[in-house]
């Protein structure tokens, strides 16, 4: 029930429609300028470039979703209805998170027009499309979990958003750190690079099990951290 109420709330908010339309517009412009370009490209290259552009822009959406689902209700007092409910707290957290993830999937679905065009008009492969979108969904789930954690802490909305962005930037820049550090730490930093190290295979249409589990691991880690922080918050004054 909480899942459906949360999901429905996305479709009842003008700010959600406005942000979604803006993101899709940006994606359209970026596709035109960065993917199509002036030189002719193979359908596989076009698909790969599109998935890259889409992944960069779709990093913003989970942060906005987490703010809508977790930070705003905490600030305006709606959270009290959940906190006083006799239901399991982890179940409430999971239902709200899943509602956010389903809405994120819906946004991804709206971006499918270009890959579908490549599929039917230029002969791109189904596998490439499906693997690419599994990658986008996994990446989005992990970013949503990171933002969920920060949006559940007792900070104003803008601080939660800033902390999510900084953490995300750190995770994205891990590949840069790996280039600066000695060889023994290189692998370590490169492994925790959220985008380059793990998303690259997905955008080329290769399903890399290790990267998929990396994203799942990040998601579970931050959801558990959220659960523990909520539990401890109630136990300490």
């Amino acid at each position, binding site marked *: *029930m*909480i899942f459906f*109420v949360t999901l*429905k*709330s996305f479709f*009842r*908010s003008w700010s959600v429609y406005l942000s979604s339309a803006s993101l899709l517009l940006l994606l359209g412009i970026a596709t035109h300028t960065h993917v199509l370009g002036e030189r002719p490209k193979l359908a596989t290259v076009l698909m790969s470039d599109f998935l890259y552009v889409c992944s960069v822009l779709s990093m913003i959406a989970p942060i906005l979703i987490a703010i809508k689902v977790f930070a705003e*209700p905490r600030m*305006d*007092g*709606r*959270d*009290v*209805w*959940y*906190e*006083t*409910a*006799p*239901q*399991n707290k982890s179940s409430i957290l999971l239902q709200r998170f899943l509602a956010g993830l389903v809405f994120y999937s819906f946004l991804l679905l709206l971006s499918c027009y270009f890959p579908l065009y490549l599929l039917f008009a230029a002969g791109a492969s189904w596998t490439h499309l499906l693997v690419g979108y599994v990658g986008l969904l996994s990446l989005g789930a992990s970013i949503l979990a990171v933002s969920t954690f920060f949006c559940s802490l007792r900070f104003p909305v803008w601080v939660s958003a800033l902390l999510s962005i900084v953490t995300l930037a750190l995770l994205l820049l891990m590949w840069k750190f790996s280039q600066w550090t000695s060889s023994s730490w290189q692998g370590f930093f490169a492994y925790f690079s959220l985008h380059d190290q793990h998303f690259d295979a997905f955008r080329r249409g290769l399903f890399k099990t290790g990267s998929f589990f990396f994203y799942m691991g990040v998601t579970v880690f931050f959801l558990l951290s959220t659960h523990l922080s909520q539990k401890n918050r*109630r*136990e*300490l*004054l």
Partner: protein
Amino acid sequence: MVSIKNKSAQLVYVQNLEAAYGAKTVFSAPDFGLSRGERVALLGLNGTGKTTFLKLVGGLMWPARGEVSLLGNAWSPAVRGKLRSLVGYLGHETGVFEDMSVREFIKFANKLHGSKCSKGDVEGLVDQFELCEVLDEKISSLSFGFRKRTALASTLVRKPDLLLLDEPFHGLDVKQVRKMADYIQNLDPNISIIIGTHLVPFAQSICQSYAVFREGVLETGENWDDVQRYLEGTEEVPEHGIASTSAKGGKPS
């Protein structure tokens, strides 16, 4: 399955409770008890700990020291779900979901608490709080008075044994305050109520006794004139005017 022990015990019992933010103790409540059907006003100046006390009794916070128990069961993770079903908590911010209609929100609150209310019960609450005319209107389009009423009706769908109201008159005009006081006064007499408020005359019209935070200690009493003067800062409450322990007092039997 967790069972509620000792049904005959006091509904709320607070013992040696201390609330602290870091090293600073905000208040202490040595001994406070509330029986079934009893209504107590929780009074105190701003920042003395009324909201914190209500949250501690409602299990929304865990105490630094001391114990809060409902029907003889101290709040703990094991009994949390069971005890929560006994408590209705309404904060000074109503927290109603503005994108829903009044009907949808009451239905949502009912489902959230295990659909304890039948369709007839819900209709009864809608009548009781005079919400018929706005039932299908979006909450965002309603006045603050209607939002408060919607929130109170939605808190009651869980059929609580204990109702915790934090500043129920906050943000309402005089007419609406009177109306809200009437609504609370006419609630089921079996529901125990703790009202955190500054408005002593309205609290007096609803409650038999009061508990006041005085110099960081929760004390209870029934001498409303004295407490009114104390809160207005015109006179200190004499020591003999306020009992240092619960009016109903005593540990659960």
